[in-house]
């Protein structure tokens, strides 16, 4: 494949004005990403009319918006790690190991590691996009409902990693997550399910309401309990940057997660939240030998961060090659292209090489800018934790309320968030993990819709789930994910038994 478009693109992206625009986008994106619910989609929606009316050329607008987009993917981790309040959907899994690290005084190290793994994920995904975009575009259109359903089965198989010494709690958490996705108007038949004549429930429970309730409100309740028992102490921030050993430890998890994140990101309708959930569970499955995941394992922090950045980049592939957005944010960006009378599709790389090249080149430049911007700032972000609890925790509560209210302009959504927070607190006290609930919720709707669409297409014949080579490969991968760790464990214990 000729890379002329990329060289032309670097010519565009490295122009001083576009470098400045890219830097501005990255900076704004980082801040936007750190604020819960004010995700990249809001940032882009706010900036698009400003960019368009100010007469910026199409490639500069796209560079600005893309900067906001992947800047937000970097920024989403900040509040996740420091406050246990995920900045966006893709940063939910980051909190699972990032927050315990921060509470143990390693906030600087956690922020730096997540920044570096974001860089690895973002950068490798841009390289993959440069060379494989047209190929992946073709792969994406081969995914029908049956293949999507099998993909979700594969994702649930990775859940096996979460099954610890109390599998029933993991499974209950997962099914609770699934039940929550059935609330609202059924997309296939239009039936009202569990809405109780309440208009606010017609759209179902929003993801951001669920995660803020489960993570930050339940956390506020737990911190309050510790305050009352006198065990809540001011946090310590060691200010230690990651060591070479840390960097070595996160390299392969980040690379693996990038592959997972990029492939999932390419598939329309899945997005960074599914990518980071699958990457986290896969990594846990591979590396949780000492039961360190969930307690501040840097591999559990690096994997979802690399995956969500890779997915954010992967989502551009179907948008540019097929005109099919891979996520809500790329849908807004598609609208931006159309505003400039540019029709994305297979011909875009040939007809608009400067634009596509400029966008892809700006991603290379943007990732470098974000790493440069983020690493020196982690000390500053981490110092936020040194604030007294009576300032910090009201801040978490305010941010949680604002995150939900500003997204849905609904008091009812805030009340649901508090209800979910109470349930999350009770479940945590009972020894339940929050991650399976989130995974069940993220995958549930896609799974049900595709299961039913596939069966509608086949007239109820379940053979459709085994009818394409892609579906068979995915079944094989699902089996592999279940059986391989079991086989490796057996082999390891056999070797241990055989050794003197």
């Amino acid at each position, binding site marked *: 494949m000729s890379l002329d478009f990329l060289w032309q693109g670097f010519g565009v992206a490295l122009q001083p004005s576009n470098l400045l625009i890219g830097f501005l986008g990255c900076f704004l994106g980082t801040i936007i990403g750190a*604020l819960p619910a*004010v995700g990249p989609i*809001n940032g882009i929606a*706010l900036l698009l009319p400003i960019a368009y009316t100010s007469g910026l050329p199409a490639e500069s607008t796209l560079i600005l918006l893309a900067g906001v987009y992947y800047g937000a993917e970097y920024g989403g981790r900040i509040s996740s790690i420091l406050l246990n309040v995920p900045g966006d959907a893709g940063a939910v899994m980051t909190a699972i190991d990032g927050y315990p690290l921060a509470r143990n005084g390693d906030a600087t190290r956690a922020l730096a590691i997540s920044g570096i793994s974001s860089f690895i994920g973002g950068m490798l995904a841009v390289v993959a996009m440069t060379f494989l975009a047209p190929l992946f575009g073709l792969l994406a259109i081969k995914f029908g409902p049956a293949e999507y359903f099998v993909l979700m089965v594969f994702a649930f198989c990775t859940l096996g990693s979460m099954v610890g*010494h*109390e599998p*029933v*709690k993991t*499974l*209950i958490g997962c*099914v609770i997550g*699934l*039940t929550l996705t*059935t609330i609202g108007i*059924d997309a*296939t*038949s*239009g*039936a*009202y*399910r*569990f809405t109780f004549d309440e208009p606010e429930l017609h759209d179902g429970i929003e993801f951001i309401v669920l995660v803020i309730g489960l993570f930050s409100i339940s956390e*506020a*309740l737990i*911190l*309050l*309990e510790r*305050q*009352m*028992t006198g065990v809540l102490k001011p946090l310590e921030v060691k200010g230690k940057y990651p060591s070479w050993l840390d960097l070595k430890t996160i390299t392969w998890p980040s690379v693996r997660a990038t592959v997972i994140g990029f492939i999932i990101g390419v598939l329309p309708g899945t997005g960074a939240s599914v990518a980071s959930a699958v990457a986290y569970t896969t990594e846990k499955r591979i590396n949780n030998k000492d039961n360190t995941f969930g307690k501040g394992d840097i591999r559990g922090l690096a994997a979802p961060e690399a995956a969500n950045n890779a997915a954010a980049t992967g989502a551009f592939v179907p948008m540019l090659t097929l005109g099919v957005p891979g996520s809500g944010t790329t849908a807004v960006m598609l609208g931006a292209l159309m505003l400039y009378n540019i029709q994305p599709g297979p011909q875009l790389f040939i007809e608009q090489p400067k634009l596509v090249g400029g966008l892809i080149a700006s991603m290379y430049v943007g990732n470098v800018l974000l790493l440069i911007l983020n690493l020196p700032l982690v000390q500053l972000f981490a110092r936020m934790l040194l604030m*007294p*609890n*009576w*300032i910090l*925790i*009201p*801040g978490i*509560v*305010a*941010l949680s*309320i*604002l995150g939900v209210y*500003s997204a849905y302009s609904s*008091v009812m959504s*805030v*009340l649901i968030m*508090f209800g979910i927070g*109470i349930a999350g*607190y*009770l479940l*945590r*006290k*009972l*020894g339940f993990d929050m991650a399976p609930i989130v995974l069940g919720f993220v995958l549930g709707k896609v799974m049900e819709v595709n*299961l*039913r*669409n596939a*069966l*509608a297409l086949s007239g*109820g014949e379940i053979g459709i789930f085994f009818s394409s080579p892609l579906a068979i490969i995915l079944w094989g991968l699902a089996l592999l994910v279940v059986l391989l760790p079991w086989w490796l464990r057996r082999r390891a214990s056999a070797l241990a038994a055989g050794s003197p």
Partner: protein
Amino acid sequence: MTDLSPAHRKAGRIAALTIIMFASVYAVLGSQIEYSFSSDPIGPRGFPIGLGVLLAALGVWYYLDTGACEDWPDRRGAQAAALFLGLSVAMMLAMPYIGFIIAMAILLTGVARLFGASWPMAFANGIGQAVLWWLLFGPLLGSHLPKGPFGF
């Protein structure tokens, strides 16, 4: 996590019964979902019924093997949690009438008090943070926050 004590076992069993009850109600309501037409053989009822049955079965498993859980808060801790949640819900319900800044200032003052601030510090923190968050999300980010009788 602590070792399994009779109190923990009891808490686990109450939770298991709650889950079984929730699952049963969910499945029954699922079987009563009204719809006129469905293009697929499962329909809008199939998934909820299946999930309800599965969750109830898992609830039974959980009842039989409750596993470990943490200690529950003492009376003082429970009162503080109730105060926090009560104040939060009251202020959220009042917010459309008294406006964002006043509701948040009262709530955040209360939360700061619960986390050990003296009254003057709690007031300063509550009012300061309410104004700061309003400025950030309102005028700066363009969110439509409720206005009270004073226009903010």
